[in-house]
């Protein structure tokens, strides 16, 4: 073999040739072709690309992602796998994908009369038309290169359709579990949520892995159409281990009087990037967006959020908090764009960051663009160390300095966890997040 032939192709070329070999349902091939074409038209993001300045994608080029999903066996028993994503006491059903493959055994039989949950490949005619009508309409291929790629590689996906005027208490959990495989591979995850008018539903997206070093790159795109006067609770729990490469996007269309309550948690990884885009398209919509990110060691994580206020009388409350430890890096870019017609908008964005070491790094950038005059918009980003007064108070009660640091750091994100509408999710996350702080159990023994 010549040297040239063993050299790994750059990721963009690999991804495209993978896309061209995808075998998926014929009725999706049009979307796939569009995606591929659009992807080819994009320039690959580099440090000079706006919005990719602080996230370097070169790690993607170092592997040979020869296949779209993995073929090796999984070194986990079913119950070990379930441990990773099941949320005790949460009324929920699961759709589980392991290394990109749908797992019949791990997934629930879903039989609810207020919601339809179906894989694209199993969709009936009516569902197919919902998919065709909406997919790629809320995230636009030409605006997001990874949306284009995701469409280009579309082999399957999940549709969750909350039916008109019905309330679904049971959470629909979509799980992507990735495990170490002998060969690097990519996972193309696509989710479409349609909340029909007057409906209410809960969606939990879980991305988990076992502890073994990751060989996957996950590209996950979620689109949500939230119709008039409906409400969606959405949780995106990104908890893979630290070698994970994950590019994700969540794109939402909020129609009149609808509500979104969305919570994001992101652990750091080799490359992690999530775009959250919310479009206020109907008057009277409300978006409550919260998130925490906690990179440590040499990990990286990047959240780019963008709220488009296109119509009057909508509100947004956005709070993101980050704790960055060791020599980890985080990026937070929060954009609020208030269009000329969006009078009487109320929008608030707050981003706070706690640096636990002097080698930790945060790039936080608020971007406000306001083209309407009668709006209220507040915006704040801070980078802080732990509060001295609080530290003094804890020391004065005999608590050791290190333990106090851990408790206070955890408290910083716990404030957001405390506000989650679904308590079992709080309970699931607390020990996982607490664990991040403790080099040693004695420091975390009092958390919870």
């Amino acid at each position, binding site marked *: 073999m010549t040297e040239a032939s063993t050299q790994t192709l750059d990721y963009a070329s690999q991804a495209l040739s993978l896309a061209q070999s995808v075998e998926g349902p014929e009725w999706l091939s049009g979307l796939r072709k569009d995606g591929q074409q659009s992807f080819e038209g994009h320039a690959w993001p580099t440090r000079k690309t706006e919005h990719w300045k602080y996230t370097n994608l070169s790690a993607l080029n170092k592997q040979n992602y020869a296949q779209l999903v993995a073929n090796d066996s999984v070194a986990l028993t079913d119950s070990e796998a379930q441990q990773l994503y099941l949320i005790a006491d949460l009324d929920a059903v699961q759709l589980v994908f392991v290394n990109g493959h749908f797992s019949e055994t791990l997934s629930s039989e879903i039989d609810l009369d207020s919601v339809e949950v179906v894989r694209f490949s199993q969709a009936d005619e009516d569902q197919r038309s919902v998919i065709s009508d909406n997919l790629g309409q809320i995230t636009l291929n030409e605006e997001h290169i990874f949306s284009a790629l995701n469409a280009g590689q579309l082999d399957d996906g999940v549709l969750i359709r909350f039916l008109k005027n019905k309330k679904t208490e049971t959470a629909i959990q979509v799980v992507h579990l990735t495990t170490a495989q002998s060969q690097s591979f990519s996972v193309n995850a696509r989710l479409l949520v349609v909340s029909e008018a007057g409906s209410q539903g809960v969606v939990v997206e879980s991305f988990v892995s076992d502890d073994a070093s990751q060989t996957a790159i996950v590209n996950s795109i979620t689109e949500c159409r939230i119709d008039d006067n409906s409400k969606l609770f959405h949780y995106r729990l990104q908890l893979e281990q630290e070698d994970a490469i994950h590019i994700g996007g969540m794109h939402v269309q909020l129609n009149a009087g609808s509500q979104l309550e969305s919570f994001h948690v992101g652990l750091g990884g080799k490359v992690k990037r999530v775009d959250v885009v919310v479009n206020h398209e109907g008057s009277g919509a409300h978006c409550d967006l919260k998130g925490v990110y906690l990179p440590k060691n040499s990990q990286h994580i990047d959240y780019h959020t963008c709220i488009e206020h296109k119509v009057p009388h909508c509100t947004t409350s956005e709070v993101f908090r980050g704790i960055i430890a060791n020599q980890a890096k985080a990026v937070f870019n929060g954009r609020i764009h208030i269009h000329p017609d969006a009078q009487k908008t109320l929008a608030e964005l707050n981003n706070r960051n706690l640096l636990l070491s002097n080698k930790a790094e945060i790039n936080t950038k608020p971007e406000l663009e306001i083209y309407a005059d009668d709006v209220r918009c507040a915006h704040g980003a801070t980078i802080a160390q732990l509060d001295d*007064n609080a530290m*003094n108070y804890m*020391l*004065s009660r005999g*608590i050791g300095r290190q333990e106090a640091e851990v*408790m206070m750091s955890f408290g910083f994100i716990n*404030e957001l966890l405390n506000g989650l509408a679904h308590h079992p999710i709080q309970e699931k996350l607390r020990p996982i997040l607490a664990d991040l702080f403790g080099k040693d159990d004695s420091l975390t023994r*009092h958390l919870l």
Partner: protein
Amino acid sequence: MLSIKNLQAKVEEKDIIKGLNLNIKPGEVHAIMGPNGAGKSTLGNVLSGREGYEVTGGSVEFLGKDLLDFEPEERAREGLFLAFQYPVEIPGVSNLEFLKASVDAVREHRGQDPLDSVSFLKLAREKCKAVNLDQNFLKRGVNEGFSGGEKKRNEIMQMMLLEPSLCILDETDSGLDIDALQVVADGVNSQRSVDRSFIVVTHYQRLLDYIVPDYVHVLANGRIVKSGGKELALELEEKGYSWIDEEVV
């Protein structure tokens, strides 16, 4: 118990404590009164080892040891307790986990095993009741959104849990309604014992009707300028502080 000799301390390059002497024997209650800005809270902060409060002279002996040698958390574990004039809010850290961490740290220092969570919860509930705080306060963030009086009662509850040897109460009575004052005073009185001493900083002689002191001191301009029995408090209430200045001069 506590022996302070010619203590001098500064904050932000400003001399605040200027040669202060005070002796406290086990079981005694000492009240400290004095004008605003005299240095009363500073004294508490210096004794508790707060960062930024620099001792520039003098000595402090606590239970036979050099107090100034210890880190702040060690002082607490050795049995020094400061009830703050302005207790701090720590959002996100639950009161219960904070209290447990604190009690465990002190117990460990005394060579006792940590309490299991069930026994601790039981104990904490008992103490809540003793200071008339609803149990829900255990679940809330430390002092988060507590009213002024609730914060003060929370301080007394902590004191009861930690069973310190020396308790410094910095204006624990201010901001309390009449019933709460009674509750706090009862709490303090229930903790009085032959081997536990108190420094009670207050502006009001009324508290001293409930917590009867053995001695009353006037702290002015960084020093104890006058000491007496409990009748001194009555005299101060009547005449204010100006006559002392004249007397000292």
